[in-house]
């Protein structure tokens, strides 16, 4: 199929339908609304369910219901709505139900604004709901990746029976780029644990309750084993000119694109810069960073936030190298020049 020009938000929907998802429940919020708009067209056209819920609380519980019956299901929102979904994420993870939620981040806290930010890293990557669980998180840097990662998210959700979040920001959601959509896949059969309303699944039970201490601990240990497996198998990151880099720039999503320009400009000025762009934010590319720390001199983390992912980079680097942080907030993107000046000032002048 030829490439099509699409908005990031629309690309997520088309890719979801191609991945065999046939149920969408959501509530409008800028800058994610086009996802619901597109879903309202594409899901019914594919014979699927689209429903505008009365709130994000209802939407995520509808996702829970659809997932319990064994169908691929998704939702989408932004910060304020994702906050309301946190109890639902916790129940989904506890009951081991697969689903995909696209989070198109905007400025916060509170109503903040509708400009691109990455201030919800902690909320999403650390799991803002209660209890011992994780969500797998994929961070696209382009419209193509919005499509690819949405499709991948469904496979990961099934594989790990866990919610997977595609964590984009307003700029990825809103930008238009040519996309090669994945070939449509058939709707998969309901997994054996699902409650489908048929005799064969009558004995199945979806629940997150484990009353006895040993039962709950056993359940949590099995969740942990699953998360360890994901940490071993699912880590994804893009490396860009890091072979001989002395300074490693680290940024995800739209920031990764800016940092590629910084690497180019820096190298033009004779600075040995490279980029590591985490793609899975959980599981985080800890081992990659640790390996880089063995030979790079310093790390510079750039985020559209007050400094959230930088904590994970510091944990991975374990104090072996300096980790500097540059953050912009409120919807302003740093320019490549600004980042380069920061690198020269903070890192090279101290070296």
């Amino acid at each position: 199929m030829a490439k099509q020009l699409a908005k990031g938000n629309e690309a997520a929907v088309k890719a979801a339908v191609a991945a065999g998802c046939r149920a969408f429940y959501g509530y409008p919020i800028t800058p994610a609304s086009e996802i619901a708009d597109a879903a309202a067209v594409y899901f019914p056209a594919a014979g699927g369910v689209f429903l505008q819920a009365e709130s994000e609380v209802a939407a995520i519980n509808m996702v829970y219901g659809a997932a319990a019956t064994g169908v691929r299901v998704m939702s989408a929102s932004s910060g304020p709505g994702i906050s309301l979904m946190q109890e639902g994420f916790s129940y989904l993870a506890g009951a081991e139900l697969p689903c995909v939620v696209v989070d198109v981040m905007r400025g916060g806290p509170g109503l903040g604004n509708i400009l691109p930010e990455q201030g919800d890293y902690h909320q999403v990557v650390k799991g803002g709901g209660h209890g011992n669980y994780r969500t797998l998180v994929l961070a696209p840097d382009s419209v193509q990746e919005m499509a690819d990662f949405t499709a991948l998210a469904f496979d990961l959700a099934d594989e790990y029976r866990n919610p997977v979040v595609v964590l984009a920001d307003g700029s990825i959601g809103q930008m238009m780029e040519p996309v090669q959509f994945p070939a449509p896949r058939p709707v998969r059969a309901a997994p054996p644990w699902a409650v489908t309303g048929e005799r064969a699944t009558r004995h199945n039970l979806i629940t997150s309750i484990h009353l006895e201490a040993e039962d709950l601990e056993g359940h949590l240990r099995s969740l942990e084993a699953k998360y360890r497996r994901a940490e071993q198998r699912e880590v994804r990151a893009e490396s860009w000119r890091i072979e001989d880099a002395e300074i490693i720039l680290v940024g995800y999503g739209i920031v990764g694109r800016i940092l590629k320009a910084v690497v180019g400009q820096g190298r033009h000025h004779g600075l040995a810069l490279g980029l590591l762009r985490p793609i899975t934010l959980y599981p985080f590319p800890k081992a990659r960073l640790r390996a880089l720390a063995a030979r790079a001199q310093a790390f510079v983390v750039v985020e559209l936030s007050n400094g959230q992912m930088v904590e994970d980079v510091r944990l991975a680097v374990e104090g072996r190298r300096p980790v500097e942080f540059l953050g912009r907030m409120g919807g302003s993107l740093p320019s490549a020049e600004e980042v380069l000046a920061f690198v020269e000032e903070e890192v090279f002048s101290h070296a």
Partner: protein
Amino acid sequence: MPEYAPVHAKPHCFYERYERKAELQHQTHYCPGCGHGIVHKLLAQAIDGLGIQDRTILVSPVGCSVFAYYYFDVGNIQVAHGRAPAVATAVKRSRPESIVISYQGDGDLAAIGSAEILHAANRGELITVIFVNNAIYGMTGGQMAPTTLLGMKTTTSPQGRTAAGEGFPIHVCELLASLEAPAFIERVALGNNQQIMRAARVLRRALENQVKGAGFSFVEVLAQCPTVWGMQPVEAQKFVREKMTGTFALGNFRDRRG
């Protein structure tokens, strides 16, 4: 062969033994005289009567009936506090052949889940909602519910509920009857055998409506919580019959056949 056929056989769609329950697998976790136990039995009989056991999916709430899945040998989904109608909505939309029951208490449905029930009803979801109104939060130990009667003392209204302080009890059937979509809305009670027999018929109707595709069906059951009310079961049943029905009028509010 027994000489007489048993009159009170356990409904077929109850498990023979409650294996999901850790101990005392022949009895329920409900207190003696609890309304939930009666509603469970009536519901199980209705499922048996309609022959829909294999197709039924029971959505159980947070509240004393959180463990409904211990008893019903049907597809079971346990959900977050108040959200059963949202979950049931999606279950039914993804599995239109299934018979979906949302079973909820008054805190679950009329307080924290008031938005979900209102909108599921307003969309006319093809589900059956069973609303067990015992005027109190049973599971958490007797706090005020949206349906607590005026003057009733609870742990969080120790002087008795007042209209000025805590508002009037919410009449959920009347509220939902202001919507156009619902097909069936009725309030029944467990105050005596006659009321219980009526409740049995109405529960069956509410399920049959779903089988026939008639539309959103809602049954409110005025039920006793002897433990938290601090009454003997007989006294509690009298309270349902004499006091609760005074605040919550029994009757049908909507009956549109499919």
